[in-house]
């Protein structure tokens, strides 16, 4: 990205009071869904094709083409309801972007829901928001109520004959609800244990009916695609991972915040130019580029690396949620990993043994090393534990817990060894 300084924001534009429906509509809001519903130029399939061509890689972390996901919905059966689930659980540590959409541009997201519901012929959409976001749940509910009042949601929208309902659902504090099938269990009023797949949600999702689940930012992007065209979207940022994206930058930087730029930004530009560099004149030590579960990068590794799937893959990590944690030279990587391990131990739902037990053992072993009671073999034991967790559970939480352990040990091994040697028999012989 060369011209990123002159980039004009589209997800979170700098327009005062844009979250108000009057201001949103003054700036062309809800005209995109009006065009789709009333111009006669669109069919559900043509909308899906356009979203597919734009190649919106899911912004919730998996990076899967959203339009392709939409195309997995089976043909509409009369009398069988279909649902859209909107994933606003936003619990991956380091992820702070969807909250800004709820607050600053909820109607762009609602319009995206309507587009998705039209394209996939959905009867209702459920916006699942984590319980901690109670202030933002109220903001989102207000936006939905305002859209209902203007006839944008409900029966026979804009006289087109198309109807859909939108409901807001409040979570109650569980990371696992960000996992798609677990979110569905939670919406159904159960303990949020992930389901085995298949069947996939498109076959049997919410209440056993065809369901698609998308991230909030992904749905906001769908509105932009239908407004400006697939080509416009596909030409923003990185070629294979295009579009505008919300970078959530936190940690030891001078100006942490949520920044909208194209994908494919140099990590170094994001740290030093966008976020103002490292605090207190310190040096960079590590970057976690996309939420706590993606593999950490050392300062040397970020050289020339950009924020898109292809570039990040070359250094063995992922875009995830683009929630970037920047760590300075004083960071104790063992303590940092210990807190991450504690998080996954706390948040494991307990359904599968490798995860329920494995996350606990991970935390204990890392704590032991951090407390100076560790042995060299603990490092191999931890890596062995990762082998026995990854891919061996119903959902990906075990993988998400194992990746940071495996990669932090591999990439900062000397820090772990120092804590072991300094405090063990090896130091005295």
């Amino acid at each position, binding site marked *: 990205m060369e011209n990123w300084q002159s980039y004009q924001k589209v997800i979170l534009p700098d327009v005062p009071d844009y979250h108000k429906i009057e201001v949103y509509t003054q700036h062309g809001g809800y005209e995109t869904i009006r065009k789709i519903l009333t111009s006669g130029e669109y069919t559900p399939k043509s909308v899906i094709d356009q979203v597919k061509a734009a190649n919106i890689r899911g912004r919730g972390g998996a990076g899967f083409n959203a339009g392709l996901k939409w195309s997995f919905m089976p043909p509409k059966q009369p009398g069988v309801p279909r649902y859209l689930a909107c994933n606003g659980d936003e619990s991956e540590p380091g992820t702070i972007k969807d909250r800004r959409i709820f607050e600053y541009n909820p109607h762009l997201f609602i319009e995206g829901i309507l587009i998705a519901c039209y394209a996939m012929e959905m009867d209702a959409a459920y916006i699942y928001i984590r319980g901690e976001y*109670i202030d933002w749940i109220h903001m989102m509910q207000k936006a939905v109520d305002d859209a209902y009042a203007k006839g944008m949601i409900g029966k026979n929208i804009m006289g087109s004959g198309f109807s859909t309902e939108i409901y807001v*659902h*409040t*979570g109650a504090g569980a990371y696992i609800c960000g996992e798609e099938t677990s979110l569905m269990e939670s919406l159904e*009023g159960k303990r949020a244990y992930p389901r085995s797949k298949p069947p996939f949600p498109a076959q049997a999702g919410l209440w056993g009916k065809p369901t698609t689940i998308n991230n909030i930012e992904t749905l906001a992007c769908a509105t932009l695609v239908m407004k400006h065209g697939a080509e416009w979207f596909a030409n923003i940022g990185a070629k294979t991972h295009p579009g505008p994206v919300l970078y959530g930058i936190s940690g030891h930087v001078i*100006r*942490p915040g949520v920044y909208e730029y194209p994908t494919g930004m140099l990590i170094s530009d994001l740290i030093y130019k966008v976020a103002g560099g490292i605090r207190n004149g310190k040096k960079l030590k590590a970057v976690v580029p996309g939420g706590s579960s993606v593999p950490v990068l050392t300062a040397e590794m970020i050289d020339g690396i950009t924020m898109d799937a292809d570039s990040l893959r070359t250094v063995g990590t992922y875009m995830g949620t683009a929630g970037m944690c920047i760590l300075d030279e004083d960071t104790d990587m063992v303590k940092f990993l210990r807190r991450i391990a504690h998080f996954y131990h706390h948040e494991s739902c307990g359904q599968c043994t490798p995860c329920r037990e494995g996350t606990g053992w991970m935390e204990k072993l890392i704590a032991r090393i951090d407390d100076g009671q560790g042995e060299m073999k603990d490092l191999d034991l931890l890596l062995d534990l990762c082998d026995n967790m990854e891919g061996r559970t119903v959902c990906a939480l075990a993988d998400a817990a194992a990746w940071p352990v495996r990669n932090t040990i591999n990439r900062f091994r000397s820090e772990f060894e120092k804590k072991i040697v300094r405090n063990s028999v090896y130091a005295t012989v």
Partner: protein
Amino acid sequence: MTDTENKEFIFTEGELQEIKMHVAKYPEARSAVMPALWIAQNKFGWLSDQAIQLVADTLGLSFAHVYGVASFYTMYFKKPMGKYLLEVCTCFSCGECGGKEILQYAKKAIQADEQGVSPDKLFWVREAECLGACDTAPVMQFNNGHYVHALTEEKIDRLIEEVKSGKLPQYERIPLNNQSLIG
């Protein structure tokens, strides 16, 4: 938490209407269990067995099912602790930006016991997992409600004094690029 002794475990007509409104959002009444638990917790302060039984009876579910849901989610309180919960995030970015120290400070400031509760049971401090506000780290959530951003020891002291005098934290709007909070 509110003392639940001598309290009748029934929902008012208004609360039942609200639950009905939630039931109408879903194809099955069972799906309204989370909103109904929220209504019960806001009313009684925490979810005692009687409160859980009330939710179960209202929605036509078993006690076991509702208890199972209530015990799965950390924001539902299964025990009466302090009246005001200070939940300090120490996870990930917050932990690296002073959250762990603020948590210890907050515990000391309210003279917390092993459970994190102050002697007068007015305050309860516990560690939060990522609250999704890493850009204003360290953050805290006050009583399952508003966030308090960019915590310092002074902010904790002030908050405790203000809450004692009846002034609760207000919603704090964070501008899109929150330069204003960062020195």
